[in-house]
Each structure stands twice: as C-alpha cells, then as structure tokens.
C-alpha cells in the first residue's frame, strides 16, 4: 500500500484529496462529515463580510446523457457571521488534528482588512489560508474575487498584505478568466505566496430556456453570469496548472482544481505539477463518499506502478508539455483500421471526408466485402477518425518511421532566417 500523504507548502494531509472552498465546505457539520468519509483536507468556504445569496443558484449542463458534464453557480461566499464560522473551524480542527484545514478568505483590497481577517482566522488554529482571487460573480462587481485576481499588481499587493501577518502557509487561488495565468501566478510568488491553487470557476451562462426564454438559472426572471466548473473544465484547468508548473518563475507548489472527478483526474493533475487536488462538483454530484473510490483507485495505481509514495507523481509529465514551436515537425502517425473489429459504421469515412483530409476510402476486399481503408500517404495523423470511432481499438494511430532527423518549427525558422540574412538575429517568427 503506497503512502498517500502529501505536504503542500508545509500543510500536511493524509491524502491528496481536499474539498475545495465551495458549498460542500460551508459548515463544520459538512467538513467533519467529509473528514469522516476520508477526505484528506478541506478548504473552508470563503470567509469575508457575510453576503446575502439569491434563491436559485446552481445550474448544470448535461450532455448526451451524461448528467452534470458542467456545473454553474451564482452562489457567493459565506453568508454566515465570521464568529460562527470560526467557532466551527476551531471545533473541526480540534476533532481532526491530522487533516488539512485551510480557510479561504476574501476581503476588500485594503491592507488593514487583510490583516484583520488573517489574524482572526489564524487565532482559531488553522493549517493554512487560501486567498480567493478567483470568484467571478457577485464579489467581483464589488472589487473583490476575480476583479482583484485579474490584476497582477493587486494579486501581488494583497498576497503581501496577507503574508505580513500570516503565521501559516498562504495559498493564492487564481482565476482562469485571464489570458495568461502565469502572469498572476508570478505576481502571487512575488507577493510571497507559499503555494498557488487553480483554477477557480470560469465566467459562464449555463443556458437559456427556449420555452420560457429565461436564463438558466434565473432569479425571478433575471439571470447573471456565474462560475463554470465540473468535468467540462478539466482540460482548461490542466493546461493552466501545467503552464504554471513549467514556468521557472512560478517557484511554489500547486494545488490543482478544476473538474477533478476520479482518481485518474487526480493523477493527471499531479503528473502535470500539482502536489494535491481539490474537488467540488464531483462531491456535489455524488456525495462525500466518492473519496473512497478515489483513495482505492490511487492506491492501486501506485502499487501497480511500484511507486511507494504519491509524491513521486508530482511534475513527472511537466517536461513533456512544450511550446508548440518546440514540437517535432518530422514526427508522423497514420491511422490504421482493424477491419476485423470495424463495424463499418462509416463514421470515420464521413468525418475524414467532410472535415479532415479525405483519406479513408470504402473499398472491396478479396472476399467481395466492403471495408474501410486508410490511404496512408495522404493521412496527416490528425486522430479524428480514431476519435469518432465508436469501437474501442478499431482504429489505432501508428507511428511512421521517418528518415528525417527531428526538426521543430523554431529550428526550421532559424535555419530559414540564417539563409535569408546570414547568421544573426532570427528574423523569422518563432513560437
């Protein structure tokens, strides 16, 4: 049995699965039940000046029979007084001293406000703080959340203000509603953050009811943008985590968030640089006990691979994530169709014919049967046929042994530039 313990910037946890700051971590009752179920840590729902929420807050995007492929919410931070939250945090930590209890914070971008709340929260005994610079709705319109988190200078300043008085590790939670997440990640590091967590939710409108013409959700006939999360956002989150992990200026550990629903998702986030993960939508969809499968699955995976500790996963795939300009242009794969497995549904032919490179043909074999065949010399290796194929293993992408040495776009452009103007500054566009 592998060791699942992690340590994120000094915050120890019995396993890498934390509940994210969100509705599941609103009260002591919930967080204690979560710890009993097996969660290694929890980030308490954001504390700040208590707000008032709307009725009707959540919406989901169901896709092709999959419930909650995406999830949208317009709920804000805690609506309970600070004193009650602090009492429950104290009781929870006392009952679960070995679990990671981090508290999410959000106040106006004023130094004294950050000092006040950091001191009050740390006084009840927490393991760390998470600064919420990501909430995209409601609070942002008041200058907090993602409104702060989209401005690197404000991220840096507020992190610094929190760190001026903090005794426990400070995690800065980043908004994805920005062009380059590393700009705010670097700002957090400059401000003294001990770790970063990402991503918070993405600006969204879940849908419009085509019968009533109301937004989904609506509050008395009117809607507002919310925050999108759940399985649908995982690729966006994974990219942003990887981008931070491979940036040499982002020198702090990462807590990965965004569509983590299974142990497999957690492994992917850790391979791309996360020390641990935070989960929300999957717990809201299936309940706290999903963590049992996550722990079992992760344990089995590590055992099968002969890894003694989950920490051995962190960052192992980061070096494989590159700028496009450093990919090998001479690498090639082509599609091969296993005609024994193929059910002749024709989806690959249609996909290739209509939207790719017209290289899958219907031909007649020696037995007079119609089969699908790839004209490999025209196949560009786009993967589309394998993606749309409904039969596992019927289409495989096969590596073609080339005769040319690896050559990236950047190497190509350098060679061409030198030819055009002789050795010197690269005049061609590199990526």
């Amino acid at each position: 049995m592998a060791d699942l313990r992690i340590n994120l910037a000094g915050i120890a946890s019995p396993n890498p699965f934390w509940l994210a700051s969100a509705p599941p971590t609103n009260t002591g009752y919930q967080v204690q039940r979560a710890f009993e179920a097996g969660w290694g840590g929890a980030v308490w729902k954001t504390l700040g000046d208590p707000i008032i929420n709307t009725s009707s807050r959540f919406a989901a995007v169901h896709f092709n029979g999959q419930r909650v492929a995406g999830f949208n919410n317009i709920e804000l931070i805690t609506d309970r007084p600070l004193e009650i939250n602090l009492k429950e945090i104290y009781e929870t930590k006392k009952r679960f001293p070995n679990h990671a209890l981090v508290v999410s914070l959000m106040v106006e971008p004023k130094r004294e406000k950050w000092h006040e709340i950091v001191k009050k929260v740390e006084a009840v005994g927490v393991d760390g703080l998470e600064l919420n610079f990501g909430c995209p709705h409601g609070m942002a319109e008041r200058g907090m959340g993602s409104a702060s988190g989209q401005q690197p200078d404000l991220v840096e300043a507020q992190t610094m203000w929190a760190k001026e008085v903090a005794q426990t590790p400070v995690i800065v939670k980043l908004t994805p509603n920005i062009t380059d997440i590393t700009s705010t990640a670097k700002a957090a590091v400059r401000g003294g953050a001990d770790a970063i967590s990402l991503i918070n939710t993405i600006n969204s409108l879940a849908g419009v009811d085509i019968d009533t013409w109301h937004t989904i959700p609506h509050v008395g006939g009117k809607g507002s943008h919310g925050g999108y999360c759940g399985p649908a956002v995982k690729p966006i989150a994974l990219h942003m985590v990887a981008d931070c992990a491979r940036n040499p200026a982002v020198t702090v550990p990462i807590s990965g968030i965004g569509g983590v629903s299974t142990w497999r998702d957690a492994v992917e986030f850790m391979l791309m640089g996360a020390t641990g993960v935070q989960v929300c939508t999957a717990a809201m969809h299936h309940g706290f006990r999903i963590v049992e499968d996550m722990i079992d699955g992760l344990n089995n995976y590590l055992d099968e691979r002969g890894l003694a500790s989950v920490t051995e996963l962190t960052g192992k795939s980061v070096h494989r994530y590159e700028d496009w300009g450093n990919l090998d242009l001479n690498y090639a794969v082509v599609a091969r169709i296993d005609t024994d497995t193929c059910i002749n549904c024709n989806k690959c032919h249609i996909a290739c014919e209509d939207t790719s490179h017209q290289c899958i043909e219907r031909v007649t074999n020696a037995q007079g049967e119609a089969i699908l065949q790839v004209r490999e010399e025209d196949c560009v290796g786009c993967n589309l046929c394998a993606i749309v194929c409904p039969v596992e293993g019927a289409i495989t992408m096969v590596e073609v042994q080339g005769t040319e040495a690896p050559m990236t776009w950047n190497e190509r452009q350098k060679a061409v530039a030198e030819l055009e103007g002789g050795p010197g500054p690269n005049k061609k566009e590199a990526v």
Partner: protein
Amino acid sequence: MSEFEQFQAEKLKLDGYVSQKFRIVGVKEDLEGAWLDLEHPGGETAKLHLKTANARKYYVNVLLQQGRSKS
C-alpha cells in the same frame, strides 16, 4: 492530383537538383509558398517554387543537411 502526389512531384524536383550538387542558397517565403534559389558549384542557378506543406518542411530538412555537410 492528391496532396501527396503534389508533394512527391515537388520533392522529386528538389531531390533532382540536390543529386546534381545544387545547394539551396536563398529562400523567400510568402503567401504562395516557398521560392528557393539553388546554385550549382559550377555557377549554374535555378529557381524552385514549393507549394505543399510537406515540401516546405522537406526543403528545410535538406537545408539543415546541407549545413551539416558544409561544417
């Protein structure tokens, strides 16, 4: 003509020049593709217009080999 056949035709032309000891000495890339200037050690010159993506990739492979054989 398929994209592959177009590439093969362009590659054949370039390989033909290379086999006759022509070297790529200049290139201009624009919206129409790559325009190569080739030169033979004997002073003879030639121009080659490469349109396909694979040919525009291939000529740089040749160029890099040319650079390697020079050094």
